[in-house]
């Protein structure tokens, strides 16, 4: 299922585990919200959820390219974060910790079953999005084609490079944080991101 060219699970071990946050990083607002919720402030969690949910959902959806699987992983990611609340230490950004959980679940999902309908969600989404762009024919067509090519290029990336690219673009993580989420060293994460950029530029070139 996982291959050196297209699999995600090839570069992560222990995908079942909720990652332990032992990295020495300053706390962020999300970490403070999480700690407040763990301490009993029930109102903190909806705020934390609202800040994190969209980016997390898109990262999962674009990684697995399957809506139902993405929703399942999304819900399970929050479920594990809730269950592991007592073990949470604000050593790293909360978003990094959350993405680690999601990434592990994505790897699990790829190991269990390769998505059969990869890409159809994005094709439909991009096509529906294009309907509003017919007011400016030339520019709209150009943007639509570029987005479609970008989406196809992302889908064509090997799994590890795709995750690195999505973490960089969608979640704006640094190289170190990409390494933390995917469980690899800094140089490996940097190399994956570089290859992903290069590959996408090649695929987008007419």
């Amino acid at each position: 299922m996982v291959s050196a060219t297209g699999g995600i699970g090839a570069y992560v071990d222990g995908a079942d585990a909720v990652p332990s946050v032992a990295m020495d990083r300053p706390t962020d607002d999300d970490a403070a919200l999480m700690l407040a919720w763990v301490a009993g402030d029930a109102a903190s969690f909806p705020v934390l959820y609202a800040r994190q949910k969209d980016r997390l959902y898109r990262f999962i959806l674009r990684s697995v390219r399957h809506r139902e699987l993405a929703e399942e992983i999304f819900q399970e990611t929050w479920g594990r974060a809730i269950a592991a609340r007592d073990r949470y230490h604000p050593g790293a950004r909360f978003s990094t910790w959350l993405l680690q959980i999601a990434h592990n679940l994505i790897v699990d999902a790829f190991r269990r079953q390769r998505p059969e309908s990869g890409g159809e969600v994005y094709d439909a989404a991009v096509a529906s999005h294009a309907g509003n762009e017919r007011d400016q024919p030339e520019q709209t067509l150009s943007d639509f084609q570029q987005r479609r090519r970008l989406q196809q290029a992302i889908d064509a990336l090997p799994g590890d490079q795709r995750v690195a690219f999505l973490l960089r673009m969608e979640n704006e993580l640094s190289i170190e944080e990409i390494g933390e989420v995917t469980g690899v060293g800094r140089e490996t994460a940097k190399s994956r991101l570089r290859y992903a950029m290069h590959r996408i530029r090649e695929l987008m070139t007419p």
Partner: protein
Amino acid sequence: MSEEHSIDKDERELARLYGKLPRAVPPAELDEAVLRRAREALPAGDAATTASGKVRAPRRGLRWAGALAAVASLVLVANLAWQQRQLPARAVRSEAVTDKVQTPPPLAVGGTSSVTDASVPAQAAPAAPAVDEAVARKASTTKPGRVAMAYNQARKSAPAAGYPAPAQDRAARGASEEEEKAPPGAGPRLAVLPPPPAEAPQELAASAAPPVELQQTLQAASTVGAAEPQRRVATIRRMLRDGHEAAARKALAELRQDFPGFVVPRDLAPLAK
């Protein structure tokens, strides 16, 4: 800016294009499911604040801890108070034990009777050694801490004239009877000390206390007993110095009564006559 954080022109262009991709969001039912899961995970009693921001009571666990700490403190204080209450009672008991343990038969002071008195029948003389032997045998089968108490009790129960006490008498008779009943070849048997009489004093019952405690009690009793006559002698001397001879004489008489074995100092000897 570091190399990793620098976004070159191509990456910036890719980021611009990526930003134009459909911005998918989780469906509302997914939001509700996650938020419900979070609400269920946080027990209602643990919530410090509600959604409206009102502050709730502290955690139930903390209230338990506070109550437990208060109860533990009360128990500790009560225990300390009980221990303090026990101290004077223990001292009084020590004095009583001292009187019984250290009070010898009226040998030196009274001078009226003695174990070695010539009026004692000859066959009765070995009675005291018999008592000692029986007690020593009993001590070998009992806890070490009880030896002193049993010994003194036996000595005390023995008549001053040296006649065997009923217990020792029964022991001796029982031993002889057992020797008579013993089959030939069984060899000599040790005399068995009979069980204590039913009218045994309370002190013997109290001797069931741990040996260490008994030793401490005896030690405290001996300390108190040694200091008390000296203190009273000093008082008597002060009375004499102040010219209260009658009071001094009376105090000395009481001292001799309380401590029959007390040897009157030479300077107070005229008062004792």
